[in-house]
């Protein structure tokens, strides 16, 4: 498909086009603590951001959502499904986060479809943005999920100096740029993209060797490191885990949720909701009569790390995409890449 | 006549735990009269020592759940006085708006929940809902308005979190302010209706001339700062408070009793405020007061309810004014911590509230001195009762008891505060 270019300071042309069809969300602050928020005008958009606190997962699997409402009448209940159908467009999403969505797509389909997630995905457009400035915590390169993207986008933007290179991934993408007065991209633009990729790849400070991961996940169930992380001095200069759950909430591939009912004061009607949950929290594995399958902190951090290394759910591959958010957010400075290294070493 | 003994073991519809004991001899003399505050003290003045200057507002907030805002602002201002910090105009405005919102909440609570049932012949607002649903709903609505403003500026109605030394951690959004403004405009009628309600209900005809004190400022209806002035000529700066106001312990009460040096007890609260600062009320509030037919200055403590209602009209007017002028821009808070002494007096909903602190070079509190409104009033309440009860001797015991309780509730004592 042919590629186009757009001058950076003409981005409002694209935005206006998007706004015709979608509610648009994008990064609204520069730096590492940006957030994806609604964009209504071009001044709100900060495509020069490095990372966001919460990943765009929040648009597809919101921290809290209503699944259906129920009503009890004459002892019989009726339910009313609540289906999300808003059209949203995520603008400026980085490759690691796109890969995370691809993983979640797979997870939320299969024998049982999660209609809530899937409807949202179906109604969304992804305008990705290749990374030219890595966060000091990210290691997507090691995992093959960045810094540049080659799947999962409707439109892909790359910063090539004064312009963005626009590559089209799907018919939606094609439709969205159709009729806009944009110049075709040249050979040089692609050379520039290539050059920037090379430059970018040199800038990573963190890495993780994924060929170890399956082995680590299999062999390290009773490693001392879990005690260190849970109770004692931590690993590689970190403090022990606080079990605050932050790592899981900022992780673009963590999906665990809790389901609960909320009744109104009539006691006859209410909603069933779900709220993101975290395996780091004590209550997560609690069952009736006070039982708990992961009471110790070490078991919880161990469960999470191994899940990210691919032991659970993600299947054979790692379920980590190397965005580095968990490293940045951890008040105890626990670094998943360092833990992986330490496990490999010892 | 018979000997009369009144024992109210717990006073209902007041904040905190207090009791009342009166005995009157056969010849109609008050033998004994005790407004007995038995709420256990919490020793804030002791444990504040050793805490840091920036925690003081958060800690003293917990003196009282009804007027946490007043304690926070007073504490902050006392600390600022100690550190020599001049807050910006925006900060002053937002603080005033927050203080006013707390006044709205607390005064409405006092009028509708605590005292109105007496005046309308009910046991509580709960039983009042049967025949007077509209009045109850109006009270709830007004109270909610106050809370929601505190919520918006302070982050939370009970024990807000954003007001700190030097300013606010965050400035509320313009849109939310606009929404509140709209509700304030709508509430004006409810405020007028409240004035009407409280000028119509029957109150005991009782007057006792005593010293009324409130802070006062020629330019505004004072809540957060002003000179400490009285109807008897007191006119001092907040830093001089301790040279003029003395406290004394009485054996039957955990609240200390105050008096003006070389003079007697005094009254603080909405009535003294309206009496002393009538000219600074908004013109609508003044009109409402005039229409009520009650003359100010007024020395019937039961007129306090009406004073609250008049203040409610003013509070709404001033809130709108502040919202219209405050720029809502982000500000930086810069200051250095140094040793010093600072005092502040503000008007809590129930009257003048005094805080003072001595801090050292590291910002650690070395001495704290707190006098809440009810500690100011406790002495005066007893003096009022002494005279008031003698006007009731023809009534049945139950009625005497109720009337005495009503007098106490007119002061709306906050007992937890008084025994901080």
């Amino acid at each position, binding site marked *: 498909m042919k590629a186009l270019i757009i001058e950076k300071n003409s981005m409002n042309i694209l935005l206006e086009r998007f706004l015709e069809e979608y509610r648009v969300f994008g990064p609204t602050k520069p730096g590492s603590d940006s957030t994806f928020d609604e964009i209504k005008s071009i001044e709100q958009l900060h495509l020069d951001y490095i990372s966001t606190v919460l990943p765009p997962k929040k648009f597809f699997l919101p921290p809290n959502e209503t*699944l*259906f409402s*129920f009503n*009890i009448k004459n*002892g*019989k*209940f009726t*339910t009313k*499904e609540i289906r999300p159908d808003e059209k949203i467009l995520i603008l400026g999403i980085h490759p690691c986060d796109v890969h995370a969505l691809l993983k979640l797509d797979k*997870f*939320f389909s*299969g*024998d*049982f*479809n*999660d*209609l*809530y997630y899937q409807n949202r995905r179906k109604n969304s457009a992804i305008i990705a943005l290749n990374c030219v400035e890595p966060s000091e915590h990210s290691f997507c390169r090691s995992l093959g999920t960045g810094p540049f993207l080659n799947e999962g986008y409707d439109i892909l933007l790359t910063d090539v100096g004064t312009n963005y290179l626009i590559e089209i991934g799907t018919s939606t993408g094609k439709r969205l740029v159709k009729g806009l007065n944009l110049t075709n991209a040249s050979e040089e633009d692609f050379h520039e993209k290539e050059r920037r990729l090379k430059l970018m790849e040199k800038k990573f400070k963190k890495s993780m060797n994924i060929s170890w991961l399956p082995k680590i996940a299999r062999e390290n*169930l009773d490693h001392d490191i879990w005690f260190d992380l849970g109770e004692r001095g931590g690993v590689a200069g970190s403090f022990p885990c606080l079990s605050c759950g932050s790592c899981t909430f900022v992780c673009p591939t963590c*999906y*665990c*949720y*809790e*389901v*609960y*009912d909320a*009744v109104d004061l009539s*006691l006859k009607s*209410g909603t*069933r909701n*779900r709220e993101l*949950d975290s*395996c780091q929290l004590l209550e*997560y*594995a*609690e*069952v*009736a*009569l006070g039982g708990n*399958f992961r009471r110790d902190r070490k078991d919880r951090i161990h*469960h999470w790390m*191994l*899940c990210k290394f691919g*032991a*659970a*759910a993600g299947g054979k591959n790692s379920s980590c995409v190397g965005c580095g958010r968990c490293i940045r957010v951890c008040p105890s400075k626990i670094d998943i890449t360092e833990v992986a290294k330490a496990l490999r070493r010892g | 006549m018979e000997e009369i003994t009144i024992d109210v073991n717990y006073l209902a519809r007041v904040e905190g735990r207090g009791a009342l004991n009166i005995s009157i001899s056969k010849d109609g003399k008050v033998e004994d009269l005790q407004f007995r505050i038995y709420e256990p003290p919490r020793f804030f003045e002791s444990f504040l020592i050793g805490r840091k200057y920036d925690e003081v507002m958060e800690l003293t907030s917990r003196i009282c759940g009804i007027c946490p805002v007043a304690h926070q602002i007073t504490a902050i201002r006392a600390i600022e006085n100690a550190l020599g910090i001049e807050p910006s105009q925006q900060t002053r405005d937002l603080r005033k708006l927050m203080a006013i919102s707390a006044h709205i909440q607390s005064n409405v609570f006092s009028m509708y929940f605590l005292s109105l049932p007496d005046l309308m012949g009910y046991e509580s607002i709960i039983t009042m809902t049967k025949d007077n649903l509209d009045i109850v709903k109006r009270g709830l609505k007004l109270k909610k308005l106050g809370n929601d403003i505190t919520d918006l500026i302070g982050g939370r109605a009970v024990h807000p979190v954003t007001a700190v030394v030097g300013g606010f951690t965050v400035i509320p959004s313009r849109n939310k302010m606009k929404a509140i403004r709209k509700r304030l405009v709508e509430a004006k009628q409810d405020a007028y209706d409240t004035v009407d309600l409280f000028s119509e209900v029957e109150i005991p005809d009782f007057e006792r001339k005593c010293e009324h004190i409130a802070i006062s400022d020629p330019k505004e209806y004072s809540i957060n700062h002003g000179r400490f002035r009285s109807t008897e000529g007191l006119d001092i700066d907040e830093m001089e408070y301790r040279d003029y106001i003395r406290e004394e312990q009485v054996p039957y009460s955990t609240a200390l009793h105050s008096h003006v040096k070389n003079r007697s007890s005094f009254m603080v609260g909405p009535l003294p405020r309206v009496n002393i600062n009538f000219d600074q009320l908004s013109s609508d509030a003044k009109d409402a007061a005039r229409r009520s037919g009650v003359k100010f200055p007024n020395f019937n403590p039961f007129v306090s309810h009406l004073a609250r209602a008049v203040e409610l009209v003013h509070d709404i007017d001033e809130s709108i004014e502040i919202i219209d002028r405050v720029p809502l821009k982000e500000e930086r808070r810069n200051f250095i911590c140094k040793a010093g002494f600072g005092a502040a007096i503000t008007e809590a909903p129930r009257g003048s509230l005094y805080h003072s602190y001595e801090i050292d070079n590291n910002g650690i509190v070395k001495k704290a001195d707190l006098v809440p409104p009810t500690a100011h009033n406790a002495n005066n309440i007893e003096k009022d009762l002494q005279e008031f009860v003698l006007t009731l001797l023809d009534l049945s015991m139950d009625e005497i008891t109720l009337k005495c309780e009503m007098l106490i509730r007119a002061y709306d004592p906050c007992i937890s505060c008084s025994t901080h």
Partner: protein
Amino acid sequence: MINAYLPNLAIIKKIIRETHNTNTYMLEFFDKQLQTSFSCTPGQFMMYSVFGAGESAISLSDINNNDITATIRNVGSVTNTILNMKEGDSIGIRGPYGTGWPLDKAKGKNVLIIAGGMGIAPLRGAITHIKNQRNNFGHLEIIYGARTPGDMIFKYEFEKWRQIKNSRLDLTADTIPANTPFECKAGLVTSCFPSMKTQHKNAIVLLCGPEIMMRYAAKCLETIGFKDDQIYLSLERRMKCGIGKCGHCQIGLKYVCKDGPVFNYTDIKPFIHPL
């Protein structure tokens, strides 16, 4: 597409009192079509909704007829509310979910069933199945233990089970209060092992009960020659969705709701805490 989270209306047709805190419920979908197309295998479970209280995973405790059978012990919010329901009341259910007991693999083999407490619930269906297809299986041995005889459920089935051809039933209780008219041994389930008839050769073990009991039983079986891969057990974990999305029931690589609740012991042994 169907929304997998929406429960369907079901009516409680019959309630059988089992113990002071446990009842068995026979249910039927309100929607006749759903009821006729319903099919399940022993060992599977359903999600039961009580609106306001939430949802709980409950095993199918029999497979005999057109009913959906559940035996529920009162331990918390959902189960407590269910226990207070009457015949004719309605409830929300969805399912069945999970893998059942490996009855195909058990064909031609001797079957040893070991159950502790409520663990007999998901196993009753398997017993019924073996009884119905008696010729397809070898010797059937059932060992059932409970804390006290009063905690035993399905007492009315014991006689029928005893009458199954080529079978043996052994009952045991941890403690037996004086004057209990009920006949059973005193001791843990493993105390029945010495008198057990089933030997490891050509046998398959179906195990369900509290996790600690299962671990202990598996260890004892090992000492008498059983291999881990002969043992199947049904696990319990916290469950919120029942369909492998909420994450709560993960055990190592597996999801109890999707890959289980019945597992081969080899698959999950490393993830169950050692004794």
